[in-house]
């Protein structure tokens, strides 16, 4: 009970974007390295094993980039027209790509040689994938068909022609070599099982042309994007719609998992990439790009983020390494270093204590413990001793005054409470008076502190109105007056605008009333709570299930 209670510093939360763990994580990406290609970047695929080579298909070639050096490691140009959807096998040895003439071509990354050509599609093949057993290939073609090919024999095993429009999206299961998904411009997403050649096992309607599909590693959920919507489907429940998320305002083109399957990334023509939490489908961060994003690639360790854009730019962003961070911000790193040193010292103490713990005192023996000395700030120390002027002086130092005005205001508030403001302000010389006056002038139009600042300003005027001032202080008083006048003017303007708005609002409400008189009388109609309605408007997530 006898302890001194600290002065309450009231700091209001800052309005604006909240700093979360995710924003901090994704903000650590460095400035991007960009490479210009000749045509739009159709597809980016990342090798699932180290060194995480990146296969980029654009125009009539497929290039494999080294993510560290940003140099082209291999390039495959044996295409007559455009090459599409180059994809690397899970062991990183082979790459497969579709092309405009309807062929699917298999290359060896090591030797650059063309190993196989799968012929059979009548239209361009935009996507092709290795199945998880690495000996089959699935291709998705504009001739509205999906085909499964055998790698060694170069033959078609099965072909599904259920779609009624171009098939531009597809993916394979990472567990079963028989399951694969296709998404088409006819708005449907179909799940095939190679063991049942009769047709697709699940077919769902996405509502707009499907641009990309993705299956979760657990194989229980798949996601499709197209139009401005992302839809999540439950595979185990036969294609039940789990969620619809619409966060882009133009077509979403690509889809990728990040952070070990905990985050989902979508890129769109609106030049943004949105990162979602896979549990709640809330956007946790947004990445901006200079041009519409057509394709995205993220290495499994989240180290590199590659985006391919419509104007042929490839942007590669690295995560900041520790050394880079240190080089960029030497001051910060010094602090961290210091902290770690102290931590080490405490750790030493802790170890020392634990060594001594072998002795177990009996339970009824009271062990005297050191009372932890709480940190008492200087202003609290002076307030405790009733030295009000000194307390005010400590919070008028330039650092606190400028960087943490809430502390200064908090101490002023406490002085008002204690009826000590007058004695704290009185008898000040020129320099300390000027620091108070500049503080007041700077903060008097901050609405969160205004009432206290005005109180202080009034007291100050009361004390110094009759005393003769130096020209310097006089100038500052005039400056304060100017600030107040400007604020008054500003508030007047605001009130004028408020009045105008009131007129507009009043006219709309009377019209509404005239339109539906029964609302006034019929009270049983219970309107929705404003807060609930606002909440429903604010989030665009509709849980359908």
């Amino acid at each position, binding site marked *: 009970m006898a302890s001194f209670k600290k002065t309450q510093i009231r700091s209001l939360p800052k309005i604006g974007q909240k700093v979360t763990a995710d924003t901090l994580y994704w903000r650590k990406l460095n400035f991007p390295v960009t490479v210009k290609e000749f045509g739009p970047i159709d597809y980016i695929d990342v090798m699932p094993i180290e060194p995480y080579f990146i296969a980029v298909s654009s125009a009539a070639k497929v290039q494999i980039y080294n993510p560290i050096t940003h140099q082209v490691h291999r390039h495959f140009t044996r295409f007559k027209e455009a090459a599409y959807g180059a994809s690397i096998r899970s062991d990183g040895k082979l790459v497969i790509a579709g092309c405009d003439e309807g062929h699917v071509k298999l290359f060896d990354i090591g030797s650059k040689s063309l190993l196989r050509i799968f012929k059979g599609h009548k239209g361009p093949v935009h996507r092709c994938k290795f199945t998880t057993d690495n000996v089959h290939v699935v291709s998705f073609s504009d001739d509205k068909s999906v085909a499964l090919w055998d790698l060694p024999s170069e033959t078609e095993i099965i072909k599904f022609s259920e779609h009624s429009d171009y098939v531009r999206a597809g993916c394979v299961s990472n567990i079963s070599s028989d399951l694969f998904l296709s998404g088409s411009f006819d708005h449907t997403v179909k799940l095939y099982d190679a063991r049942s050649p009769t047709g697709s096992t699940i077919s769902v309607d996405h509502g707009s042309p499907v641009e990309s599909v993705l299956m*979760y590693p657990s194989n229980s*959920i798949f996601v499709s994007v197209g139009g401005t919507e992302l839809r999540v489907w439950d595979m185990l429940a036969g294609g039940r719609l789990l969620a619809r998320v619409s966060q882009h305002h133009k077509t979403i083109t690509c889809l990728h998992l990040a952070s070990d399957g905990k985050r989902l990334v979508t890129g769109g023509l609106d030049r943004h990439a949105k990162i979602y939490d896979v549990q709640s489908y809330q956007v946790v961060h947004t990445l901006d790009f200079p041009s519409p994003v057509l394709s995205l690639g993220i290495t499994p360790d989240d180290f590199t983020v590659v985006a391919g854009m419509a104007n042929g730019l490839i942007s590669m962003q690295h995560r900041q390494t520790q050394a880079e961070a240190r080089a960029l911000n030497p001051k910060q790193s010094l602090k961290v270093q210091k902290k770690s040193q102290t931590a080490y010292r405490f750790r030493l103490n802790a170890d020392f204590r634990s060594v001594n713990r072998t002795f177990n005192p009996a339970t009824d023996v009271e062990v005297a413990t050191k009372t932890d000395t709480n940190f008492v700030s200087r202003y609290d120390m002076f307030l405790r001793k009733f030295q009000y002027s000194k307390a005010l002086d400590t919070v008028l130092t330039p650092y606190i005054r400028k960087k943490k005005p809430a502390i200064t205001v908090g101490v002023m508030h406490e002085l*008002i*409470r204690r*009826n000590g403001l007058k004695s704290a302000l009185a008898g000040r010389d020129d320099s300390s008076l000027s620091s108070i006056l500049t503080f007041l002038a700077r903060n008097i139009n901050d609405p969160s502190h205004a009432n206290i600042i005005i109180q202080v300003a009034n007291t100050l005027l009361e004390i110094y109105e009759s005393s003769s001032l130096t020209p310097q202080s006089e100038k500052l008083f005039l400056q304060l007056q100017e600030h107040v006048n400007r604020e008054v003017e500003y508030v007047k303007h605001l009130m004028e605008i408020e009045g105008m708005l009131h007129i507009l609002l009043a006219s709309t409400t009377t019209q509404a009333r005239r339109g539906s008189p029964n609302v006034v009388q019929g009270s049983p109609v219970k309107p929705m709570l404003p807060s609930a309605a606002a909440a429903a408007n604010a989030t665009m997530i509709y849980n359908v299930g």
Partner: protein
Amino acid sequence: MVKMANKKTRGPDKTQANTSDIVVKKLDDATDIVRQPPVFTNDSKYICIASGRQIGIYSVESADKVHSLKEHTVDVIGLAIKDDNILLSCDASGETIEWNINNGTMIKKAPIVVAGIKEFHSFHYPGNGKFLVATPSMYTTNMSSLWIVDNYTRPRKLFADIKSTPQSIAFGCNQGNGSLVVVALQDHSVVVKDITNGVDKKHMTDQRKFTCVALHSEKLIMATGDISGRILIWHDFVHKSRPVKTVYHWHTLPVNSVCFSSEGEYIYSGGSEKVMVKWRLGMSRKQFLPRMGSSIKYIVNAPDNICVATSHSDNAIRFIDSTNKINRAIIGLVKHDPIRGFADTEPIKESVMPTGLVFDPRSRGIFFNAQAGFLQLYDPQKNSLIFNMDVANRNVLTDERNLVIGNAEVLRVAVSPTGEWLATLEVWSNMSAGYHDMNLKFWRYDAVQANYELNTDVTMPHQDRVTALSFQPGLLGTEMPCLVTIGRDLKFKIWRLVDDTDIYRQKESWSCDVAGDFRKLTPSALSFSEDGSLMAIAFQDTVTLWDPTSINLNTTLSHTLVQEPIELMEFGRDHCFRYLVCASKSALYAWDVISQGLVWKVGQLQSSVRCLVPDPKSCFMAAVLQNSEVFIFSPSSSKPVHAVPKMNSSEPIAALFVPRSNPLASGPEWLINSRLLIVDDQQEFFCVDDVSSAGFNQKLTTPISHMDSLPWTPFSAMRAEKQISAAKQLVPVIHQTSGIQGYKSVQSLLETSASALPPMSRICSLFMSDLMIKHGPKAVTAKVNSVDRTTTDLPFTNGHIDTKTEDFNEETTLQKLLTLDCQWLVETVK
């Protein structure tokens, strides 16, 4: 509409018949323990404290109550230690009782007789069968005459017109000749009398009034304190007419108490600064003990010089050890110091206990004001303080000499219907600074911590003073709670809990949902119907009814017969839900909210209605008038069911129906489920109750034996704690739900959404291994064996161990059952 002219002109009806068995009791345990200075016993082990008509004997070691002595019929005015074991107490009627301190029994009862005197002010015992008693002065009010009474019956007047406080009389022994010296204070002088030698002296100083006096126990040294905060030490004041004085001046406010240490090396002094100062005599050195919580009334030193007890105005006695630290405290119900610093226009009820009594359904306790910025929860069933909570969390500021410095004060409290939420309004207003502060705080009860946690703190919820807050009752568990406030800025505001949870953290906070006003009138009262579907706000003489969810104005009720501004308003409960009872300055009337008409009105009340309290357990309502009359009525009719006549001269400030834990078997209908608790402006608690009910004063615990208050020593540990008997003890059956194998993993598998599950192949083996039994049955039997062995080793403590073996046996059978159940699993896994 039934109209009744005046409630006072009631004819003899059936209500009169009930009156005889309904009584108004004063709750003695709730009275303060700091009215009289406490007294240490000679061995300094116990401290005797007078509280109202009772005397409590507390152990100094543990601050626990050892005995409660109840024989006096009026308030005790003085305590003294006669012998090592005998306590002498005297009450205001002059009755003295001698008590045995060790066993709390009465030894002797005898009255002090002073001719023509009925009332006594204070009592002191200098020894040798002589008493010092102060009686009211004959000619001047608020002054006393001091008498010395020898052997109960032979009084001799010593002084006239002395101050009547207990601290203004002191006695000591002249070491030189062993004569008794008595000193007493008048306003500007000290009067001294050496009884044996018949020396009389009167010392005057300047215009500063004296407040307290103390005498050194051995030497003839006197200490006096005055209103300027100065302490004077007087040497040789019996014989010299101009004695030598030493000035010790640190206090700025009046010195409330001075006390010599028993060796006489130090003096302790205290006052409203809440600081105890320890002065070393003859030196300028002094020690401070600051921030003692509230102002010091009395300081008493223990005879062994180790401990000092201070009585504080917040009804606490604190013990200070030799290292100048507070180490224990005896805390009673805290009296609220009237708020100063408000404007004069403020009504009195705003300054004394402004929260009133607020029932907490969770703990079945009552919230009301404690010290400035504090709130206390009092349990009327057990008659004890549950906790004292710091709402403002500010340093308590003390006044300066000519300046009142206000503190943050809790002005309103509301508890949500479930008791989960507590809303407090604290106001700090200082007229001299011309600035005021207001905070609305929302606290949530954390059942795990058994504590209230601050959830939201709103600065200036209204532009002007908030006059009432109320939670919406009758909400389902799924609905967000809702609070309504009305303020003098002509607005009412609705606050709702907003869920602000995202994937990183869970957060709920309160925010203002709607603010409304009505024809620019000041809202004065607020009430919710019992089911929470209707909210009534009174704007001067008009009652407005609102739908709390949509904030649509349903109806406004006003009548030419009721033109006065409404001060209090309550909805009826139970089957009287449709009646809205309103009280204005001179009238009490009821609206029917369904037919929207005035039902009845009682005009020309003798004094205005102070509190209007509905009984939560029945349809009845109590109206407590300013002149302390109480009427119990049903809102459906104006005829009172019962009327309690004037209790005493004091003015009631708050009232509350407290639900009973056990309903009465018989009695008037309104008393069966609850009883009425009333607090007056002296903050004394009164209870309107049936004679037959046990009441609040019943003894719930047996007095603590002498042994229990002993410190925990190796010898006390040897004392037998439990007795062995042949009777079989009942062992409660405990169902072990947590003991099921793999319960957790099955649960987690079921709870996790399908999307978040890793591939089956990865979790299968983990899941199966969770289902398997970790240790074989062999280990369990080994355990049992070891326990058996201990029982044979220590036969004399078999009471404890026997039950343990039973527990283990139970566990083994459970294990066996589980083994049988999971046999198939184990095999398949193998």
